[in-house]
């Protein structure tokens, strides 16, 4: 019964990954290059003097910064909402109507969301126009640089605001599924509201939050469309860099592009493995 699913996910996915790795090793039949070499990877190392070497490490750092910041901010935001907004109720369930509303935000593809963010927060965007009409700024240049800024703020804002409803829904689903009233039990044992939160509610939602953060991190780490729209020319995020190299007019730089995307995948896998190991250890204690 699993076979069709495994063939599609495992088979297609595995074969494509294999293909990507081959290409990153310089196997480029369309320009008659069949030799396997690690050159593309060497070219990424600092000091090799290639354009790729100048950009790879900054891009890696920038990508880690953006995906890390967006994930953490979103997690803090979602948790904050649960804590502040719903923490006091006896059983922290969402107020009626909010879940369908949050679900609606999921109708926005990331690209569409980023377009909206750009229209709102650009230096000549709608917010800047409002401030101008209020007399708070005189020219677009007076408005802070939030879109296409060298620190990735626009990208982070876009992903954070998009991830918060997603994480919130995950947390609410977890709390909703909790049929036993642990919070009430803790209260009868003498726990204060904050103690209940700290020792009961948080541990309950933590696995879901970790899983959601991992998904979010992986997604942002490998994202292309939004950084392409809201980012600057330097530093660039890894996926943008990879596709740029891949699309370079010189077909030989395709290997470098593929190498960058293979490394992007490898790093995400590493992070996922570490997160899994950490949560596995945590949940192992609970049996």
């Amino acid at each position: 019964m699993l076979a069709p699913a495994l063939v599609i996910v495992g088979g297609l996915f595995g074969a494509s990954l294999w293909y990507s790795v081959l290409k990153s090793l310089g196997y480029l039949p369309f320009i008659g290059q069949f030799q396997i070499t690690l050159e593309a990877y060497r070219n990424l190392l600092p000091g090799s003097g290639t354009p790729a070497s100048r950009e790879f490490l900054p891009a890696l750092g920038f990508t880690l910064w953006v995906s890390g910041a967006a994930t953490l901010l979103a997690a803090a935001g979602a948790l904050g909402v649960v804590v502040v907004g719903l923490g006091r109720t006896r059983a922290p369930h969402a107020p009626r109507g909010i879940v369908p509303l949050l679900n609606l935000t999921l109708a926005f593809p990331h690209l569409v969301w980023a377009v909206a963010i750009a229209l709102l927060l650009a230096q000549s965007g709608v917010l800047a126009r409002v401030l101008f009409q209020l007399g708070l700024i005189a020219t677009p240049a007076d408005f802070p640089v939030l879109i296409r800024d060298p620190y990735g703020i626009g990208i982070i804002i876009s992903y954070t605001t998009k991830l918060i409803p997603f994480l919130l829904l995950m947390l609410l689903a977890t709390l909703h599924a909790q049929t036993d009233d642990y919070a009430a039990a803790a209260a009868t044992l003498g726990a204060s509201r904050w103690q209940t939160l700290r020792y009961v509610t948080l541990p309950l939602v933590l696995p879901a939050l970790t899983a959601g953060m991992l998904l979010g991190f992986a997604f942002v780490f490998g994202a292309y469309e939004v950084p392409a729209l809201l980012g600057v020319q330097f530093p660039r995020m890894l996926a943008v860099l990879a596709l740029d190299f891949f699309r370079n007019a010189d077909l030989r730089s395709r290997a470098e592009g593929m190498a960058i995307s293979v490394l992007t995948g490898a790093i995400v896998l590493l992070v996922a493995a570490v997160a899994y190991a950490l949560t596995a250890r945590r949940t192992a204690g609970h049996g």
Partner: protein
Amino acid sequence: MYQRSLLLLLCLMLAACSNTPAPLAPLPAPAPLDDWERIVADARGQTVNWYMWGGSESINSYVDQFYGTALQERYGITLNRVPVSDAVLAVDQLLSEKEAGIDPGSIDLIWINGENFASLKQADMLYGGWNQKLPNSVLVDYTNPALIYDFGVPIETFESPWSSAQFQFIYDSARTDPADLPRSYAALLEYACANQGRFTYIAPGPGAFQGTRFVKGALFELSGGAEQWRNFDQAQWEQWSPQLWAYLNELKPCLWRTGSAYPATEYELHGLFANREVDYSITQSVTGAGALIAEGAVPETARAFVFNDYMIGDYNYVAIPRNAPNRAAALVLANLLLEPEFQAAQILPENGFGLGYGIDVRKVTDEQDRATLEAAMDRLGAPATPPAELLAALVPDAAPEYQSLIEEGWRENVLIGN
């Protein structure tokens, strides 16, 4: 069941690594290029898949409305305009098809630029020998050096022109007095630093040739001429490039966002210009700001202008891949593009395309056609740069080798450096 799925998985993996092309039915022998009537007959009932940049809605509707209708009515050909965000996607597609041995493929005609033309030539993916066999090719000046080199790459028999373009700036006559416009790179530097943050250019790089062209113009002016850059000379590059970077780095702190960010596309720059973040935009259109005004992308007071010299002009082309499934229809379409009536239509701002003639008006013998073409030129009006000024500043592009030197050098020395 698991064993079977495992086997299938293995097959898939193997298929991914093997280079044996999938067996496909061979095409019937194509009509000889000299037999135009047979080509037209073969093309009837075909669908021509035209891959082109789809970012401009006005260009999209111009293509559908003018060529789509005419192809259907006159030749019984269906036009499938395939919009891509970047012509390089079509290149990717062709390379993958070649790698997999797919023939016939999926692309019949590409609106292509020099970089991608070079890539496809490198990969030997283009169909050749056809451009001067088109009936309308007699209207094209195949002796014009600006036409027979695409970004400096010889077009040989692989490309047929569609339209022409020339690098120009746009300003807003409601905000800027024409008398204050800079007319050289030197004056631009002065202007920019006197008006901090009010100027920027498109980041040079693959797919953003306008930015590269802006930098090339600076190189021409610094070195005192465009002619010596027609052929590649490494020593000459090493002599002048430091001065080029020096100029651009001097300009950088005066730029929009002090040069830490640059618009990635022409349209992004139009947006900055229209929203008063910067004072000038860049265009390639013979209508100047006309087509953009018609589209609503810039204010109606926008006008075009040029420096006194070094405004690179060129042609743009269509090419047919070697594995085009509907070659006859592609040839008919490439020929249709050169019809005087469509050439006249394509330059008018209200039609939404707004690029110049691909044909040479002087070669048009039909009196009425010629009159239409000339009248169209006269109708461009105020938003366009006067033809005389355009011609006076016109220079051809530099050799293709400089393209990536400029793009990578710019990233290294201007964008990232210091």
